[in-house]
């Protein structure tokens, strides 16, 4: 179809009045709304970071602290962001009724997520020698924002392990019943995306200007 025909079709009464969004389950909407409010929570935290940073003036990080190094956070990113893929793969699998894909995918994600948390722990071990949560506002922001995200990863991992345990039993998930898998997947993707925002805020932004 040429472009003009496409536009005419898309602006016809029938196309314009197409029902959209449509056919989602109550659980899907519930999870999406929950994620929306959680995302706002992180937006407020990140907004507070920038507010305090720019109201502070002066060098940032303040008080002679060094700007965070990038090697480990980039490694953490490389571990966490791809961890969404096995979840997608697992979810696609169970939609076709393939339970083995569900189990394998969840297990891989679990390993990646736990690796991420271990990396967070080593990061903290190093940073705590330099500054703590009570050193100054920068320290408070650093630990509260990353810690709050780490807590979300933990919650996400709890969901994943819970799904994994449930999927080991027969008679739980299948092509017609996978609401819980999909909802946990939405949450996990959300936790991933938030990490990208945090990487930018905490680790990259101090290096800009």
């Amino acid at each position: 179809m040429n472009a003009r025909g496409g536009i005419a079709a898309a602006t016809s009464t029938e196309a314009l009045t197409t029902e959209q969004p449509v056919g989602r389950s109550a659980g899907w909407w519930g999870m999406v709304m929950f994620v929306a409010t959680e995302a706002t929570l992180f937006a407020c935290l990140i907004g507070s970071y920038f507010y305090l940073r720019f109201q502070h003036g002066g060098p940032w990080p303040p008080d002679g602290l060094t700007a965070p190094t990038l090697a480990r956070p980039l490694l953490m990113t490389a571990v966490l962001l791809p961890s969404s893929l096995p979840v997608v793969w697992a979810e696609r699998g169970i939609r076709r009724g393939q339970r083995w894909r569900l189990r394998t995918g969840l297990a891989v994600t679990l390993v990646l997520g736990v690796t991420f948390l271990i990396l967070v722990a080593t990061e903290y071990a190093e940073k705590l020698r330099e500054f703590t949560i009570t050193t100054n506002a920068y320290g408070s922001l650093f630990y509260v924002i990353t810690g709050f995200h780490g807590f979300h990863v933990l919650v996400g991992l709890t969901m994943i392990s819970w799904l994994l345990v449930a999927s080991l039993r027969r008679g739980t998930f299948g092509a017609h019943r996978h609401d819980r898998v999909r909802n946990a997947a939405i949450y996990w993707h959300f936790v991933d995306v938030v990490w990208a925002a945090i990487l930018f805020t905490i680790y990259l932004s101090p290096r800009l200007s």
Partner: protein
Amino acid sequence: MSTHPGPRARLAGGLLLWYAVLGGAIAWAVHLIAGWSVDELTCAGGSERVGALPLRTAIGLAVVLPALATVGALLAAALLWRRTARTPQGVEPERRVGRSRMLAVVGIWLNLLFLTIIVLGGVALIVLPPCQR
């Protein structure tokens, strides 16, 4: 119209409807956050330039672009309104068109309202010096 649009056209049409309803609101949110933060941050940094642009131009962009997006949404809402003028036969189509027409009315008013707010922001930009305390 009697053509039966394909799934891609339906998707585009459904999205266009939401642009017609909420486009102005989103444009206004972008305008407010962009205008405010650029003004605050640049002035706090003690300069009147954002990169190569003078501050006034940068903020001007944060007014003009959202305003244009809102005008686009307004046109889309007007189109939706025209396309839903006639009530078709049958229970389901009637409901669908009735629902869309209500959304069109809501969209037209929303876009007009947000356009007014953005234009008022533009007036403030013309009248007030950006960094005066």
